[in-house]
């Protein structure tokens, strides 16, 4: 081996070590959880209180319980089922930091798939976090993976058989919380997590449950409320009222033969009325270009603009993009109207709440205005 070769080999080894150290540190950063600052009159418990099979694992997560002075119904709101869908997560955070409940109870799980917040999806090149400017400084939030972290549940099978239906899905879907309901107490960690959430719904006698999501613009179920048969009346009335507010939602029935989804199994395995809400998020789509924090926040991508002109998308794509404010505002209005429609139809289970901004207020004042400063 010549001196030159030895030098090149050494250089290669040193560079490899530097890259390893850098990426190790970057991956490690994801373990750090950025805080959420709850409002008053909240009780915070762990999800493992409802099923101790997830205790001490990365699937365990915080549950925020807001109870009113008066008795009424109970609502559950799930953010972060898919941690790569930031509007769902940030809507849950905003609720935790702003919401005041005066009648009944509202229970919020912002990081439903807590494990998924500790990694991103391989080969997607998405940012690990995003920043929102508040009135007093910048706050950081995690952007994670659609799936549970593979370090928490390994290996994936060739084919995932959903329990108990036996429906076949590709192997990695076994780490997808929204394909794992109603869950299995002695199953893999994702199934245990799903079981814990179903246990919470049963134990707390949740009347109305809302699972917050986002989807890419080329996905046909977009800007949608997906409703179980039992939820359909409330969903249809809410859809009309949202239209009157100028917020268009498509109403989709939950197919009986698609198993594992919250909108299906929560309805079939508990007494709750389930809903799933989707907003349109360009950073999730295959047509996107540069995958940056700016795309996550502003939702503008020139390739999507082009795709929209060619009529390839299922949803209108405005010239200014679909910013996180719009997506969060849509989620919030849908939550408000779904809960108030439910209360109208079930006055004995009324849920009363206040202090949430409107869609137009969020657009006008921006998200950071409604989040705590973190100081």
């Amino acid at each position: 081996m010549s001196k030159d070769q030895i030098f090149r080999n050494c250089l290669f080894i040193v560079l490899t070590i530097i890259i390893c150290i850098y990426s190790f540190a970057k991956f490690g950063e994801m373990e750090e959880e950025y805080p959420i600052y709850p409002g008053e009159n909240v009780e915070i418990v762990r999800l493992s209180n409802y099923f101790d099979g997830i205790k001490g694992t990365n699937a365990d997560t915080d549950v925020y319980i807001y109870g009113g002075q008066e008795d009424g119904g109970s609502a559950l709101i799930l953010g972060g089922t898919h941690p790569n869908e930031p509007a769902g997560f940030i809507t849950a955070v905003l609720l935790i930091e702003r919401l005041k409940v005066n009648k009944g109870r509202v229970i919020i799980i912002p990081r439903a798939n807590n494990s998924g917040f500790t990694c991103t999806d391989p080969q997607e090149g998405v940012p690990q976090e995003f920043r929102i400017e508040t009135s007093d400084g910048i706050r950081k939030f995690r952007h994670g993976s659609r799936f549970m972290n593979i370090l928490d549940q390994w290996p994936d099978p060739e084919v995932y058989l959903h329990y108990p239906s036996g429906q076949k899905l590709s192997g990695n879907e076994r780490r997808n919380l929204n394909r794992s309901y109603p869950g299995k107490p002695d199953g893999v960690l994702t199934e245990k997590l799903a079981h814990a959430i179903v246990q919470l719904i049963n134990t707390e006698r949740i009347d109305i449950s809302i699972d917050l999501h986002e989807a890419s613009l080329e996905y046909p179920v977009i800007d949608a409320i997906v409703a179980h048969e039992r939820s359909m009346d409330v969903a249809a009335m809410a859809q009309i009222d949202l239209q009157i507010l100028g917020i268009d939602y498509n109403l989709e029935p939950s197919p009986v033969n698609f198993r594992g989804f919250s909108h299906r199994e929560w309805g079939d395995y508990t007494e709750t009325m389930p809903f799933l809400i989707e907003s349109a998020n360009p950073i999730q789509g295959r047509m996107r270009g540069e995958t940056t924090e700016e795309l996550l926040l502003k939702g503008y991508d020139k390739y999507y603009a082009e795709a929209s002109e060619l009529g390839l998308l299922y949803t209108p794509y405005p010239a200014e993009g679909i910013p996180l404010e719009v997506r969060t505002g849509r989620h919030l209005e849908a939550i408000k109207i779904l809960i108030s429609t439910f209360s109208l139809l079930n006055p004995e289970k009324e849920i009363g709440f206040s202090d949430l901004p409107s869609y137009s207020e969020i657009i006008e004042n921006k998200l950071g205005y409604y989040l705590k400063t973190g100081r």
Partner: protein
Amino acid sequence: MKRICDYIIILFILIGFTATGFSQDMKLEEPVLLTAAGQSADIKITDILLKRAGITANVVNLAEVKDLTDIKTLIIVAGGSSKGLGAANIDKDKELERISNLAEAAKKENIKTLTLHIGGKTRRGKLSDPFCETAGNAADLLIVTKSGNEDGFFTKIAAAKKINIHEIKNSPEMIPILTGLFEKK
């Protein structure tokens, strides 16, 4: 001068009539059969809007010819939903055939057909357009939201068939049109 005034008044009346289209609309009668072409949940929304307009409909997602017995008005809500077709366990071709048969039978029985499209852009495109076309061509009258008719898809059908079309901004705007058509107060 008076003559010019008269002309102007007549002109305004004519513009008024063509713009609203109300005067040329047929009257519709109950009993109503409500079905969906493409199995979207827009049928549920329509049912609620009909109720708000004081109209009771027999809602049959997969209505067949036999469901037309004693019916005076058939309302078809056009737009495909993959989730809906999945839930109803019916494929696209069978669904199209069902709508064609139903429309043909309605025509034979002198049952008026009102076709609605309220799902906007999402209920257009590859999956939905065949349903929109079949249901549109079956119609005696069309009510569609603007966002689903940006390319003039329904306007063209209405022009070709020489039928009336109401373009509305959002689905709740359908309520006053329905009360007018069914002469509800």
